[in-house]
């Protein structure tokens, strides 16, 4: 890597105060980015500044702070709309996170779904993109169908093309698998779905922070992600929806903001996006996600991607040299997430031991239990990289894993 790039990357890393600390006497090495990313100063300060200068409740106030808070909140919506290339700002709904977004959809489409309709998901979905659909099926008598994958962790597109039919009502798939790192060919999947008039839902929890997203190009009906995985705060998420379908489906939660007129007999709902935002919103959360989008826009995204993939490739190479290591997820199109198991060792024991060296990885089923069943494993060790990680951290990870194997065998 040339020094120019190195400088840029070091500067980015300096933006993250949390990284500058010791864990068990060792430098913190944070490789749990798929679970949640860390926050740059700009995001932390945006939240602080908001509370120190502009906080008030939004939308229904005429005083200055209320106007400022409303502008801060609505500006964040504009940023998200641009980030996703949404045709309209009011197609952006703020939620609590991806899970909240999926639950909103799965609940609000209830009246569009009939007995024996089919809902398609895939074998590699996060629980958040499984259980809400199981519940929808219970409520409506619809049937949940699962698109299979191969051992590399790639979706079987031909199978999918065979499974989709006039009975298919909704397909909900993950853009980028949090366990396997697989990037699904969502454009193709959506195109096939469209030709069958199927509602398309894309779980972008992992993708939004790593891939440029253009909802108009994708032509999906819904796209969802969480703030905390794109350098933003916890407690805020996004639901993008096409205008016609957002107007067609029922509201999800009921209360303040989402109504135009309430009497005890009857209630009139508000327009988009308010129809789906009942109650005082997470204003500071929106401000924070706005700042995190500014942060991402300020990155050289090609450089970021190259850097993350070079960490991925380097770690993969080193891991494969260790005896007994098996990589889970070898898709040809992948992101910087590596899941692996080690013969005879349980992921938790490995995780606990390498934590002694200051290294944070995620261990377990990563909320993808059916995927674990597919691979017949109890869980994996997962190292997931972000822009602030570096090659020497990978070296230390490899050393620590070797140590764990020595200790536990």
């Amino acid at each position, binding site marked *: 890597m040339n020094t120019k790039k190195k400088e840029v990357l070091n500067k980015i890393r300096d933006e993250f105060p949390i990284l500058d600390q010791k864990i068990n006497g060792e430098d913190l090495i944070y490789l749990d980015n798929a679970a949640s990313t860390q926050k740059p100063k700009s995001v932390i300060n945006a939240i602080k500044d908001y509370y120190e200068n502009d906080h008030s409740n939004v939308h229904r106030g*005429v005083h200055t702070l*209320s*106007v400022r808070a409303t502008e801060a909140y609505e500006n964040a919506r504009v940023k998200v709309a641009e980030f996703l290339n949404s045709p309209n700002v009011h197609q952006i709904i703020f939620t609590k996170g991806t899970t909240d977004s999926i639950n909103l959809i799965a609940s609000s489409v209830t009246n569009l779904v009939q007995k024996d309709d089919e809902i398609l998901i895939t074998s590699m979905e996060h629980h958040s993109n499984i259980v809400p659909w199981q519940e929808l099926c219970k409520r409506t008598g619809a049937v949940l169908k699962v698109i299979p994958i191969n051992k590399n962790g790639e979706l079987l597109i031909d199978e999918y093309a065979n499974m989709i039919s006039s009975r298919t009502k909704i397909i909900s798939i993950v853009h980028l698998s949090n366990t396997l790192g697989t990037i699904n060919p969502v454009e193709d999947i959506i195109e096939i779905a469209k030709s069958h008039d199927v509602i398309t839902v894309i779980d972008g929890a992992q993708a939004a922070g790593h891939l440029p997203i253009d909802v108009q190009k994708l032509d999906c009906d819904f796209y969802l992600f969480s703030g905390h995985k794109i350098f933003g705060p916890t407690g805020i998420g996004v639901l993008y929806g096409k205008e016609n379908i957002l107007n067609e489906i029922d509201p999800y939660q009921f209360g303040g903001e989402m109504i135009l007129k309430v009497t005890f007999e009857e209630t009139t709902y508000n327009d988009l996006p308010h129809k789906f935002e009942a109650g005082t919103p997470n204003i500071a959360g929106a401000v924070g996600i706005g700042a995190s989008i500014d942060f991402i826009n300020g990155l050289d995204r090609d450089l970021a991607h190259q850097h993350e993939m070079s960490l991925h490739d380097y770690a993969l190479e080193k891991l494969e040299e260790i005896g007994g290591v098996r990589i889970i997820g070898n898709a040809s199109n992948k992101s910087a997430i590596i899941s692996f198991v080690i013969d005879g060792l349980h992921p938790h024991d490995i995780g606990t031991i390498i934590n002694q060296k200051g290294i944070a990885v995620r261990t377990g089923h990563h909320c993808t239990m059916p995927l674990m069943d597919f691979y017949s494993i109890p869980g994996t060790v997962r190292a997931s990289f972000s822009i602030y990680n570096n090659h020497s951290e990978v070296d230390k990870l490899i050393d620590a894993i070797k140590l764990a194997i020595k200790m536990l065998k």
Partner: protein
Amino acid sequence: MVSELYKRELIELSHNPYHFGKPKKIFSSHETFNPLCGDKITVYQSIDPSKAIELWFESVSCIICSASASILMKHSEGMDLNDGLEFIKEVQNAINDGSLCNHKFPKALHCLEEINNYPSRITCATLPWKTAFELLK
């Protein structure tokens, strides 16, 4: 300054709005709510709009909204339907972007120009126009 928003003429207009109340004959009507406050306005068209526009209104509303409605009632009166719809649309946009002081608009509208500096109150000014558009379109 807020005194520039609450110009004397605006306040007067709101105290004595033009065509306030239900007309004797109602050809059609439309009701909307201000999402800011829940205020209600009903706009009535008293004759067949293909002949000419003749609007009346009832509302419980603030000074801004009442005055704005009054101007609408007065200056749309007698307009041809298409011209009227275009006029209404243009004024709505001009309220939003603060360009009411344009020679193509009746002078009465100038007194609403300051509203652009009070983003939370813009819907108060546009509500009658939005309602009339829905009614006539």
